[in-house]
């Protein structure tokens, strides 16, 4: 019968009305009292005395609960993670960068003379304002010192603030992405879960110690004669 389709459509939308919502609220979501007590791990009776302001907001359904969404470990955010201790200042990243936005200034440090002398890094700037996040620098890094980052809340009012210099790179939280770093994915690494500030965890191979290098190059050669 003609006109029956209209009612079929109405039943479809009525089913949608009573089905769960797909919206993901970000950066926080509105919550009532029960959700608030579940989030703060406190019974509602305790909330009245300990968090009276949040209790009142929860009573009218306006309490805020911060939301952190699930993120794939291989997601590339708009920042970089750099390990000072792993970097040899070889400037491979700067050479591979198609836009030329990585600036490295070094001087001979006078350390480690036996292995061919280390470089001390004066300046390590990445201008993320012009970066296209192709990841060639990360691919090029031979010592796994540079990683793609996972943070994406880095909006700024001035372009100058988008330049990642050495201080910010060393001081910021280190949540590297597992993009081009398969060793993270093998360990089921979650960027939100863990702060990888220890440089030894970040690489495929560890940077050899001074003693190792000495053994490898000096002692071996001496014994070989």
């Amino acid at each position, binding site marked *: *019968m*003609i*006109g029956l389709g*209209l009612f079929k*459509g*109405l039943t*479809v*939308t*009525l089913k*949608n*009305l009573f*089905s*769960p*919502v*797909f*919206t993901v*609220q970000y950066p926080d979501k*509105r919550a009532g009292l029960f959700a608030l007590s579940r989030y703060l791990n406190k019974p509602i009776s305790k909330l009245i005395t300990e968090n009276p302001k949040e209790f009142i907001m929860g009573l*009218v*359904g*306006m309490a805020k609960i911060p939301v952190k969404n699930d993120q794939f470990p291989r997601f590339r955010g708009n920042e970089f993670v750099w390990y000072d201790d792993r970097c040899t200042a070889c400037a491979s990243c700067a050479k591979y960068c198609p836009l030329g936005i990585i600036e490295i200034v070094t001087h001979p440090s006078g350390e480690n003379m036996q292995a061919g002398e280390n470089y001390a890094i004066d300046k390590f700037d990445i201008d993320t304002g012009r970066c296209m996040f192709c990841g060639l620098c990360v691919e090029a890094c031979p010592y796994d010192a540079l990683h793609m980052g996972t943070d994406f809340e880095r909006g700024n009012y001035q372009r100058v603030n988008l330049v990642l210099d050495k201080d910010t790179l060393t001081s910021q939280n280190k949540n590297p992405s597992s993009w081009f770093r398969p060793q993270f994915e093998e360990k089921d690494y979650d960027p939100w879960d863990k702060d990888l500030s220890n440089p030894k965890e970040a690489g495929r191979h560890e940077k050899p110690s001074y003693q190792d290098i000495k053994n490898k190059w000096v002692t071996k050669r001496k014994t070989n004669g």
Partner: protein
Amino acid sequence: MYEFIYDILKYVLDLFLTDLKYENYILTLLTGIIIAFAIINAVLGGVLALIWGERRLLGRFQQRTGPNRWGPQGILTSTADAVKVMFKEDIIPEEADKYIFNLAPLLLVVPVFIIFSVIPFGMGLYAVNINVSVLFILAVTSISGLSIICAAWASANRIAIFSALRSVAMLISYEIPVGLSLVGILLITESMSVMDIVNYQSLPFILIQPVAAVVFFLGSLAEINRTPFDLTEAESELAAGYQNDYSGMKWGLFYLGEFAAAIAAASVFSTLFLGGPNGPILPGIFWLTIKVVGVLFVIIWIRATWPRFRIDQVLNLAWKGLFELTLVNIVVTSVTVIIWPEGDSNRILYIALANWIFAFPFLIIIFRLLRTKNYVDYINIKSSYPIGSDKPKFEKVGS
């Protein structure tokens, strides 16, 4: 309601001023102002709630949350919108006819508020009791077409004029089925007063006059420019339609008028067909509110589901479908009213039975008449050419 407030005012006034010259006139004026103030504010509050409820419900119909940031469950969203609209810049186009341009929003809003003056909110809770109030409602609602054509013509915008012409064509066509669908009710109650119709409805008229109820509902959807008849605001074709050049509070008045019209249509439908304030236990005003909210829910539900008609389909439905249905309804009702004499206690049941029996076959016949050519047949006719392409103009001869 009028006498009650009048008496209170008179008592209060007599305490202070004993010898007032034109006391009657002053009291009448004051009473009228108080009642109008109360009704208009109730409707404005209802409009704010309706805008919020519609956005929220539409969200749930589409499996998203809808506005939930301002106030509990986002209930202050529409209030914030209203405040924002008040502070926006008011632009009048250079080529616009200023006087009519400013008049048009008022012409849309004021009649909608006037409708509420004849609607009984409870038993004995009404502003005025006119003995031809059904006719009054039909007359007042038809002013909205004038407002729309005024707005479009004054703003000197061709898109607005297209929208207004469509809208007015639709409004004029749908006024006829809406008016005729009420004839059945008038035949049964033998009165044009809304109060009499409400008092008559121990059994709601939607059960006695099913066809009239359907036609009236669809017609009122068209009168308030709602989906599936919202041709005036077909965003993909006409941008905002006749309100293209309006901004600030004038645009806000149009918006207000549309939503107030939705409430008005819902309350007229629930007073005429759902029994109005009639109902057990609870006082009348609660029953009317429940019924109005229910009708508004159905209107929003339809908006979330059905697509928009084309202009020719809209006019076809009005003139080839609903118009005939109302005529059939009038014939069936008048015959049954004459056959069963007054005073019979089961009279209303017989009339309802006759209407239900005649309703379904005629509905089917009318929808058969409205059926357009099947798409599959079209493919078979033009099977040698792809759909949508005409026969090629230059065919090679002899090859």
